[in-house]
C-alpha cells in the first residue's frame, strides 16, 4: 500500500471538463493505476483531488486556469508512464477526420419533417404494428408500401378502404417488390426505364417479368406491387384497381401487365371490367388460371415469360433447347424443384401441368396435388412458404434454407433432375450462385442428377447476373435463360428419358 502520487501542472491550459473526465477515466482504467484525475485547478477541484489522495505539492499550487494531471499508482514507473500518456492525449486531443454521428429519424413524423416533399413510405415492421404505421402514413397523405406480413386480412381490407377514401395507394401488406419512378424498393432489380407498367400481386413474379423485359431489351415505367391478397374477395382488388388507374393516367406507360394468382370469379370480373374501360392494352397473367374471356384490349398469357415477351410484341415460341440434357442411366425421371420464389414455383407447375406431367407441391396450382398427397409425380416446392421460413430468413436472403434439401435430392436415386431458381437484386443474398456452387461441389456425386437453374436478375444488379450464371456453370449447373425455359428443358429431358426406357 505504498502508492506513488505524481502531479504535473500545465499552466494556462484549458480543456472542457467533460473531455477531462473522460480522459481521467481512460487513464484510471490502466493497469497499476489506483486513481487518476485531469482537472482544472479550481479550489473545489483541488479539494476533490485532495480527498482522493491525488495531490502533492505541485498540484496544490495550481490555480483555476491551470490543468492538473494527478496520478496515484502502485509504482513510480507506472505513474510516470501514465503521466506521459496523459500529456500525449492532451497534445493530440483528437484524430482528425472523425466520421461524426449522424441522426436518422426514428418515426414517420420526424422523417416527414426532415423530407417534406416525400409522398411514399415503405413500412417494414413486425406485422402487429404494420397497420398502425400505415394508418399514420395514409392520414398524412402518403402512398404506402407495406413489406410486413402477418397482417389479418380484415385489417388489410379496412386499411385499403380508408386509403382509397384518402386517395392513397397501399402496396401490400406482404408486398415484396416494387419499382417506383425507377427506384427499386425491397426485393427488386435494377432494370432500365421504359414503357411497360406492371401491377403485381406477386413479388417474384414481378421480378421475373421486369428482368425478362430488361433481358429482351425493354424497360419498365412503374412496377406497382399490391400484396398477395389484394385480389381476394375480402379486399376486392382495391389496390389493383387503383394501380390500374395510376398506370392508365401515367403518360410514360404504354402497355400494362397484370400479374397475380387466379382471383375469385367476382373479383376477376370486376378487374376485367376495369381493364375493359382502360385506354391502354393490358396483358394478364393469372398464374395457374384457366382460360378466361378477355376484353378486346387485353390478352391472357399463362407464364411469366410469355407476359414479358407479349408485352414487347415478341413471339411466344422461343424455347431454345440445349443440345443435350440427358439424365444419367442410374437415375429415374423424377424432378425435384427447390424454388425460392413462390410464383416461379407456380410458373414451373403450370408448365409441367401443360405438358401432362403429374406435380405435387406445398403450394399447388390448380391441377397439382398437395405435397402430402401420396403417389407419383414431380415435387415442386416453394421454400419461401411459412413452413420453411418459420423463424428463419426467406431463402432469397439466406440461401442455406435450401442446402439440406438440395443435398438430399442430389443423393436421392429417384431424382433425375433438380430444378432451382436463383433470385438476385436488391434485398437478395449477395452471392446466391457462389453459395449454391459451393454446396454442390462439396456434395458432388458420381452419378448425380442434372441440375437446371435460371437466374432472375440483371447485369445491373449488385450481384451481376452474368457473373452468377458463370459461377453456376462452373459447378456443372445447366442455366436456362428463364425460369420457364428451365422447366421446359426438364420436361424435354424426362420425356425423352421415358422414350429411352419404353
Amino acid at each position, binding site marked *: 500500500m505504498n502508492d506513488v502520487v505524481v502531479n504535473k501542472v500545465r499552466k494556462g491550459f484549458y480543456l472542457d471538463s467533460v*473531455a477531462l*473526465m473522460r480522459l481521467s477515466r481512460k487513464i484510471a482504467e490502466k493497469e497499476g493505476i489506483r*486513481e487518476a484525475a485531469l482537472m482544472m485547478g479550481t479550489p473545489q477541484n483541488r479539494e*476533490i483531488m485532495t480527498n*482522493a489522495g491525488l495531490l502533492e505539492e505541485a498540484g496544490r499550487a495550481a490555480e483555476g486556469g491551470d490543468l492538473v494531471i494527478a496520478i496515484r499508482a502502485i509504482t513510480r514507473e507506472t505513474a510516470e508512464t501514465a503521466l506521459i500518456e496523459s500529456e500525449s492525449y492532451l497534445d493530440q486531443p483528437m484524430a482528425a477526420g*472523425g466520421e461524426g454521428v449522424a441522426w436518422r429519424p*426514428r418515426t414517420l413524423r420526424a422523417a416527414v*419533417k426532415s423530407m417534406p416533399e416525400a409522398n411514399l413510405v415503405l413500412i417494414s415492421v413486425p406485422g402487429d404494428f404494420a397497420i398502425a404505421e400505415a394508418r399514420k402514413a395514409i392520414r398524412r397523405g402518403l402512398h404506402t408500401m407495406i413489406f410486413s406480413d402477418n397482417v389479418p386480412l380484415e385489417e388489410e381490407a379496412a386499411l385499403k378502404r380508408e386509403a382509397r377514401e384518402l386517395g392513397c395507394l397501399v402496396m401490400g401488406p406482404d408486398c415484396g417488390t416494387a419499382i417506383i419512378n425507377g427506384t427499386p424498393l425491397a426485393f427488386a432489380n435494377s432494370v432500365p426505364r421504359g414503357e411497360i407498367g406492371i401491377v403485381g400481386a406477386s413479388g417474384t413474379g414481378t421480378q421475373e417479368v421486369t428482368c425478362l423485359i430488361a433481358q429482351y431489351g425493354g424497360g419498365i415505367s412503374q412496377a406497382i406491387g399490391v400484396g398477395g391478397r389484394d385480389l381476394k374477395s375480402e379486399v376486392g382488388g382495391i389496390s389493383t384497381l387503383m394501380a390500374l388507374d395510376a398506370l392508365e393516367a401515367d403518360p410514360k406507360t404504354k402497355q400494362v401487365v397484370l400479374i397475380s394468382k387466379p382471383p375469385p370469379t367476382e373479383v376477376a370480373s370486376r378487374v376485367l371490367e376495369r381493364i375493359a374501360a382502360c385506354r391502354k392494352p393490358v396483358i394478364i397473367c393469372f398464374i395457374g388460371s384457366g382460360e378466361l374471356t378477355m376484353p378486346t384490349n387485353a390478352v391472357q398469357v399463362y407464364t411469366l415469360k410469355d407476359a414479358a415477351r407479349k408485352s414487347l410484341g415478341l413471339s411466344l415460341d422461343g424455347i431454345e433447347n440445349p443440345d443435350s440434357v440427358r439424365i444419367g442411366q442410374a437415375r429415374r425421371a423424377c424432378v425435384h424443384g427447390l424454388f425460392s420464389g413462390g410464383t416461379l414455383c407456380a410458373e414451373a407447375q403450370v408448365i409441367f401441368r401443360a405438358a401432362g406431367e403429374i406435380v405435387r407441391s406445398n403450394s399447388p396450382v390448380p391441377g397439382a396435388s398437395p405435397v402430402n398427397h401420396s403417389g407419383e409425380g414431380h415435387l415442386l416446392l416453394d421454400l419461401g412458404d411459412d413452413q420453411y421460413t418459420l423463424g428463419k430468413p426467406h431463402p432469397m436472403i439466406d440461401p442455406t434454407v435450401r442446402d439440406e434439401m438440395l443435398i438430399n435430392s442430389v443423393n436421392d436415386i429417384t431424382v433425375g433432375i433438380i430444378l432451382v431458381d436463383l433470385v438476385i437484386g436488391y434485398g437478395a443474398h449477395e452471392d446466391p450462385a457462389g453459395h449454391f456452387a459451393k454446396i454442390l461441389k462439396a456434395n458432388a456425386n458420381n452419378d448425380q442428377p442434372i441440375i437446371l437453374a435460371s437466374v432472375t436478375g440483371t447485369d445491373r444488379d449488385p450481384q451481376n447476373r452474368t457473373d452468377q450464371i458463370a459461377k453456376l456453370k462452373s459447378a456443372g449447373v445447366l442455366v436456362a435463360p428463364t425460369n420457364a425455359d428451365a422447366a421446359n428443358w426438364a420436361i424435354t429431358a424426362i420425356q425423352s428419358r421415358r422414350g429411352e426406357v419404353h
Partner: protein
Amino acid sequence: MKIIEDANREALKRMLSGDPVLVDVIPASAAIPELKQRMILHAGPPIGWDRLCGPMRGAVTGIAVFEGWAPDLEAAENLAADGAFELHPNHHFDAVGPMTGLTTISQPVMVIENRTFGNRAYCAINEGLGKVLRFGGNDEEVLDRLRWLRDVLGPAMGKALRSGDGIPLKSLIARGLTMGDEMHQRNVACSGLTLRALAPALATTTTSDDGLPEILAFVGGNDQFFLNIAMAMGKAIMDPVRDIDGSTLVTAMSRNGTDFGIRVSGTGDTWFTAPVEMPEGLYFPGFTESDANPDMGDSTIVETIGLGGFAMGAAPAVAGFVGAGAASGAAVFTRTMGEITFGENPEWTIPALDYLGVPTGIDIRLVVETGLAPTINTGIAHKEPGVGQVGAGVVRAPMSCFEQALRGFAERIGVS
C-alpha cells in the same frame, strides 16, 4: 384528435409566448406566504421521510439546523424521524429547487415573473459546486454558505434587481444557446451574461462593506449560478400551461431521489410517478457508480421547456458523458428529442444545427408511441447524506410515468 391537437397548440402557444423576467430576490416567507416554521419544500413529487434517499435526508437535517429547528444534525434527524417537519413538493408552491432542492422559510429566493401571464415562480440561489446542500452536504461550511446567501448575496441581489426593470431571460437564453450553454449542465455563458447585466446595479446599490467583492467573486466563480434562474424561469413558463383540457403536453418533470414524477396539462395536478433511474455518467476521482444516488431534483423543468438534454446540440461536450461520447452525437440527442415534442422554439435556436429551434412541448403520446423517454442532463449526488456531488451524467425519464399518464389522460377524456 382534433381536440387534442387544438389543446396542444394552445399549450405550445402559451409556452412560447411566456415572457420570463428575473425581477427580485426576497425571503421565501415573503414569496410563499403559506411557508411556516418546520415546513420544508423539496424537489420531486410528494414523499415522506421514511422513503427519502440519503442526500435528501442529509439536506433535510442540514436545513433544520440552518433554520434553528434543531441544535445539531443528530437532533435534526431524530426530529425528522418523529415527523416534526412537514414535507411538501416545491411544485405545489410555485417553486422549484435543484437536486435535493429544499426551500424553507428564511432562505432567499429569486423571483421570476412571467410578464405575459402575470404569474411568478421561485427558486433558491445556487450555492456553487463541491459540497453543498443540494447534493446532500450539510456540514458547517455548507450551512455558513447558506447564511451568507441569506444575509449578504440575497438582499444585495434583490436590491440591485429592484433598482431596475429586471433581467429579461428569453433573449438571454437565446444568446446562451449560441454560446454553448444548454442551461442544465452548462450555464457558464448565461451565468456570465447575468452577472454582466447585474453588475452595474450591484455597484450602485451595494458597497464594499455590504460584501460587494465577495458577491462578485462568488457569482463570477460559479459556473452553475444560472441553473437556479433557468429553473425558476422554467416553472414560470410552464405554470400557465397547466390545466388545458385535452392537452397531452408535459407541464413538469421532477424527481425526489426516490420517485420520478410528471404532470400533464390535461390531467390537472396528478403526479404520475415511477422509481427514478441511475444516470450514466462520469465520476470525480475517488468515486464510482456504486457511490451514486439515483436521479434527483426539480431541474428537469429545464428539459420540460426544451433545454438541458433537449438542447444538447448547443453544448456538444455534454454528449461525452454517455457511451462513446462523440461530440457530434450531441446533435442526435436534440434531434431525437424532436421526435417526442409537439413543436420547436423559434426563438431558442442552435447555430450548429442550422438554427434548429429547441424541441419544445413533450407530448406523452409521442413518448409512449416512440418508446423514446426524455433525455435529462444531470448532476450525481453521493448516496450517503453529507458527502455532496460525485459526478455528472445523462439519464432517461422512466417510461412508466408516461404510460401511466397516457392511461390517466385517456380515462379523463373518456377513451378506454
